[in-house]
């Protein structure tokens, strides 16, 4: 679930292909998944939990545009609810992690000294463990429940916002333009608005996009191995677990949640261009 930086310090080297093309493809993928998550559950009137064993593993068509699963539940409705769940949990986690991460990062850079050292130590202790391990340990409190995922993921990822904001802010604050602003009589509010925020927006947007992708992957991975969200709640990972035994009869159904997961993560990566460093 860690957002892995892929840009080296060695300098900007253009990626192959056109940047505009990558962005457009990414935005298209995200738009499709986002639309499914937002409007899907509201437009589709099939109940994602209603079983109909006589209609199990039907192919696309009839009353089920994307067919049914092994219990005869409507695939489209389940996929849409799962999309809403994943993206909703992802967005909640990202916001919960980003807000304190950004504020503490700013505080550490601004105050420096003991505050900086204390927050740095806190950050180091959270980062001592790979993020998913932290989530797993927390999941031990209530396997299958929603809250350990949310709390664990937020707890593991606020440090990334903290570190990036602290690093960017500290280097920005040491620059001559901030010193010049202070000499010209400007206060902290002006410095933050004019000199800090414009440089933070880009890295933060990237971080949030990758945080969202990491959360969606983590939730589906944990659900796939039986620790995250459990059936009958529709979730992309647990849908794949449930459909795995039927790979021969219904390969399409098995492929669907995986495809949506792939589209979400790829879309986020393409829109950002580069992973945060």
């Amino acid at each position, binding site marked *: *679930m*860690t957002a*892995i*930086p*892929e*840009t*080296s*310090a*060695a*300098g900007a*080297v253009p*990626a*192959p*292909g056109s940047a505009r093309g990558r962005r457009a493809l990414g935005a298209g993928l995200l738009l499709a998944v986002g639309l499914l998550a937002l409007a899907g559950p509201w437009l589709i009137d099939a109940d994602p939990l209603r079983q109909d064993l006589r209609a199990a593993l039907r192919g696309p068509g009839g009353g089920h545009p994307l067919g049914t699963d092994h219990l005869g539940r409507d695939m489209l409705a389940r996929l849409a609810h799962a999309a809403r769940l994943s993206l909703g949990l992802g967005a909640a986690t990202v916001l919960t992690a980003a807000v304190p991460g950004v504020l503490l990062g700013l505080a550490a850079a601004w105050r420096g000294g003991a505050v900086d050292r204390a927050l740095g130590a806190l950050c*180091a*202790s959270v980062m*001592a*463990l*790979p*993020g*998913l*391990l*932290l989530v*797993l*340990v*927390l*999941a*031990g*409190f209530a*396997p299958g429940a929603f809250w350990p995922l949310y709390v664990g993921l937020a707890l593991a990822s606020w440090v990334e916002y903290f570190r990036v904001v602290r690093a960017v802010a500290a280097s920005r604050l040491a620059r001559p333009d901030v010193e010049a602003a202070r000499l010209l009589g400007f206060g902290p509010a002006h410095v933050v608005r004019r000199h800090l925020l414009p440089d933070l927006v880009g890295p933060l947007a990237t971080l949030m996009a990758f945080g969202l*992708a990491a959360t969606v*992957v983590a939730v*589906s*991975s944990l659900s*796939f*191995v*039986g*620790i995250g969200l459990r059936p009958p709640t529709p979730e992309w*990972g647990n849908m*794949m677990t449930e459909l*795995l035994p039927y*790979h*021969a009869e219904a390969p399409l159904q*098995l492929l669907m949640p*995986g495809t949506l*997961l*792939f589209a979400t*993560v*790829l879309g986020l*990566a*393409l829109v950002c261009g580069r992973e945060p460093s």
Partner: protein
Amino acid sequence: MGGLTRALGGRLVQAALVALLVGIACFAMVEFLPGDQAYRIAAGRYGEDLVSTAAADAVRLELGLDRPWWERLGAWLAALARLDLGVSLVTGERVAHEIGHQLGHTLLLSLAALALSVLLGPPLGVLAAARAGTAWDLAGMSAAAALRALPAFAVGVALTWIFAVRLGLLPAAGAEGPAAAVLPALTLALGLAAASSRVTRDVALSVMRSPWVAFARTKGLGEAAVVRRHALRNAAAPVTAYLGIQLAWLVEGVVVVESVFVWPGIGHALVHAVVARDVPMIQGTALVLGLLFVLLNALVDLLCILIDPRAGERRR
């Protein structure tokens, strides 16, 4: 070697933090488990049918469960410091013993995955860099981006379907024989290699455009000597440092991939322990995986310092 001592000292602190973090979380887990703890332990010892209030009280007194929580936390952490990991609530076996069985499998899997990814990723990245801007570069980097967007479990499912179900070449699960390790190791390695090939490509390109490579050329050195003496080490440094960043991804991937392939390692055991809420097992497995992460990181630190003399100086 001040840089080396500092780096290893930092990793020791990290190891202590891992133990503290896991220990406190697991202690809290025991505290928050529903029902009476002493009763649960007595039931574990004597069997669900034979347990009585008296037996539970005896356990409570014996384990000091009537003491205030901070004393119990202290005792819990002290036991951890003595490497006393306790007994599994599910099997009744000593946790250390069980982990001893699993550790080999996990080490084999993670080292095989790392080795495979180093064999795949950087060479492909160098190839892409050599053909930068061509269709090969675009195709290679698109494939890497797509692979990175697939979660490990999905890659595992796809590989199983292709190699085990359709082609019948390799076993889909278990750990019988070396062939069984191929699919799980490949699953992990593909994700790692996809990322490191992209990093290698960018690093290789920027190193070959660096002013010192240009200077080496105008000094009259042939291209082979330029690459050998001025490009390799400078490109290896950031790629190795990136390997350190990937280790978190590797350890997370081990947990998921072991479960997907029913590989009898520590990650698989951790997932089982979480489902069964077997706290001593959760603690033991999470601790060992965390320490494995620290150990691999320390090795990467060492490598970085060996490759780049600046790495030792930059660290604080």
